[in-house]
């Protein structure tokens, strides 16, 4: 047995350190910020401010089975059960300051970027109001066109300048532009390694167990401005490349079906979902996650940085969203798609039906949809999920049989 650290161990260590350091920093009287998961991390990292990510924290609470008391606390404050469960967990946590996962310190200010959804704006407005703290808003207008128009780039860049000014005021320190350049380099490199590691799941069989993406994701959310993030994804890539060389897939029993998972995980039922899929030899190889943090730009190029943060899949027009997912299904050689109709996420749900209508004929791949929620366990039924997955397996098998027959019985891989 090798005593070399694995990427999974490194991931665990770094995440623990991330949460511990935030608590310690707060104790020492240092500034702590809360940030949305795909907001530009570059500014706070340059300033050396500890940043915690409520979406990641809520997901961890959900996965550890601790969502209900916090959801109920938020609902007791008047938050509707129809609102995003990440937001409800976090707004509940602000009251209780206790949860089943690592606790996080309250922020001295918050930074919000609405490239994922506008719900974040409302959620963060409420944090700012409740805690009476400053809010840095990076507003990234939705792209109805195929490109980020120059007018939007200019608007976003002006907000970068505004954010820097606010940070200088909050910290009482000058912004170090040389350090900023270095942080941009590290962040962009982290994103490149993340994307590369995730893309290795395109191999058949996939060396990556797709559900591991949900674990590794925490690092690209929380630490992409740090060298440790690059190291982890470099190591993960090496491990996966080694598996590919040895022809070893993630599933010992073999990978029978490959699917794309559309939407956020059902964190409270992650184990159940994984086991259900694995029992049929299904590996989730495709998702929108590899590109969610593919924030690729040349360090120092603020136009490109503005474009990168604005071009997140959720912020793009229907045509691009369809093309992107069609590409994932093809590139990752998926045999089927599972759509999570996530009760928490209107932006991802309300284009899903039209996407299904356009993606299915473009890929000739069957799909199912199930009702769930990212962290409200009350909005998911195990039996429905299992039945739907079974139906998908039948459809995928039928399709493979038909393909084999038409190819004269040649095994399709």
């Amino acid at each position, binding site marked *: 047995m090798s005593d070399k650290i694995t990427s999974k161990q490194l991931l665990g260590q770094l995440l623990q350190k991330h949460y511990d350091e935030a608590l310690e920093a707060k104790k020492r009287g240092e500034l702590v910020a809360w940030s949305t998961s795909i907001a530009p991390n570059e500014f706070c990292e340059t300033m050396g401010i500890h940043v915690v990510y409520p979406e990641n924290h809520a997901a961890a609470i959900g996965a550890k089975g601790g969502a209900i008391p916090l959801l109920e606390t938020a609902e007791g*404050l*008047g*938050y*509707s059960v*129809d*609102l*995003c469960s990440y*937001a409800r967990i976090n707004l509940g946590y602000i009251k209780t300051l206790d949860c089943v996962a690592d606790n996080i310190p309250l922020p001295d200010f918050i930074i919000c970027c*609405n490239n994922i*959804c*506008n*719900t974040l*704006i*409302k*959620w*963060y*407005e*409420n944090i*700012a*109001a*409740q805690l009476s703290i*400053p*809010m840095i*808003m990076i*507003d990234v*207008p*939705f792209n*109805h066109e195929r490109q980020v*128009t120059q*007018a*939007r780039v*200019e*608007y976003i860049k*002006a*907000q970068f300048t*505004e954010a820097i000014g606010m940070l200088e005021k909050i910290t009482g320190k000058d912004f170090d532009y040389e350090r900023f350049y270095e942080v941009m380099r590290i962040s962009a490199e982290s994103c490149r390694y993340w994307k590369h590691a995730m893309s290795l799941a395109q191999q058949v069989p996939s060396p990556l167990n797709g559900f591991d993406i949900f674990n590794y994701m925490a690092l690209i959310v929380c630490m992409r401005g740090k060298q440790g993030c690059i190291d982890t994804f470099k190591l993960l890539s090496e491990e996966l490349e080694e598996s590919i060389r040895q022809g070893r897939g993630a599933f010992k029993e073999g990978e029978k079906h490959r699917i794309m998972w559309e939407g956020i995980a059902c964190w409270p039922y992650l184990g159940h979902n994984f086991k259900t899929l694995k029992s049929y030899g299904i590996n989730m190889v495709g998702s929108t996650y590899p590109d969610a943090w593919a924030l690729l730009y040349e360090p120092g190029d603020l136009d490109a940085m503005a474009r990168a943060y604005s071009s997140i899949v959720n912020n793009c*027009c*229907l045509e691009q969203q369809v093309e992107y997912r069609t590409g994932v299904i093809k590139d990752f050689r998926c045999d089927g798609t599972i759509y999570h*109709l996530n*009760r928490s996420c*209107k*932006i991802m*749900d*309300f*284009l899903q*039906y*039209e996407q299904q*209508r*356009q993606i299915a004929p473009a890929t000739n791949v069957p799909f199912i949809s199930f009702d769930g929620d990212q962290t409200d366990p009350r909005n998911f039924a195990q039996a429905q999920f299992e039945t739907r997955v079974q139906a998908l397996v039948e459809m995928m098998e039928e399709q493979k049989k038909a393909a084999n027959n038409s190819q004269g019985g040649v095994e399709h891989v």
Partner: protein
Amino acid sequence: MSKFDQLIDSFRKPLSNPRGTVTEFKKTTGGKVVGCLPPYCPEEIIHAAGMLPVGIWGGQTHLSKVNTYFPAFACSLVQTTLELGLRGVYDDLDAVIIPSACDTLKCVAQNWKAAIPQVPMIPLVHPQNRKLQAGIKYLQSEYENIRSQVERIGGKRITDADITDSIGVYNRHRRVMRDFVLLAATYPNVITPSIRHLIFKSAYFMEKSKHTELVQDFIREVRQQSSITWQGRRVILTGIMAEPESLLELFNEYRLAIVDDDLAHESRQYRVDVPDGNEPLERLATAWSNFEGCSLAFDPGKKRGAMLLDMVSTSQADGIVVCMMKFCDPEEFDYPIYYEQLQTANIPVLYLEIDQNLNSVEQLRTRIQGFAELLK
């Protein structure tokens, strides 16, 4: 028929058959008609082109087609709007403008292209960093895009002077609508909640100088009547909108006068004038920057609660009725914050869930009746 009834009829006419209103406008003026989805569109640009902007705010209808686009947890406003569009109700429109003020509306705009391709869609994304000069400049570019698309539809240029004139027409209309709100609070015996709503709603289906004139006539007519002491209670509505109309009849039944409102469908439209300035599109964009107290306009200061408290004191209201559009995230997020402020100030609050497509208002009846009794 009394003059008052005649005026009410004039307000009701364009609403009783919106499609007829559209075709009538086209026939008599030869102009085009552009639909404006919630919450805020730069109608002045459409008006400057000699076109009629009409409001598209859903309605009561049976849902049979829209479930192929939205699951059940989308608000009734967008469900009914897309349903009507899928049934061809908007086919006479030359285009629609869809602002992306919330996640749901972003998806409405994108779905529109697939669902109702026969009616061209012009997107609009307001900046949320509204106080920054860069935000105003960006919004100007959005309005510039709308101007060029509307020009293409109309086949003629829209000059700055045209827009400046239209801003004048709209600012006059805003002032008259604010006068009307004060009048409605003074004459609750005459201006019932339904009539109050009718006058707001009719503005979405009439050329604005005509509507201004009609409202001015109406104000004059009502002022001739002596104001009778109101025996009931006085409330303020807050939310996106207060429909269906049967809901408003309940307010009448239980003697609750609507003395002011903070509804996106009603007074929020008229809260601020377009300020003075040189460039008309910059003026329009600056109005968005000056606007406050709407769940769809970024406000880290959360001024809405304080604004509601001001309204209560100015209009001497006895309580606030929250008209919560079911499944409206922005409004649902605002609620706990302003509710706490209202509670601290001992202002009675009634929370009503709004579904435009409600078949029966009986459940709401019990709640409104209970609230009216509480206020006694």
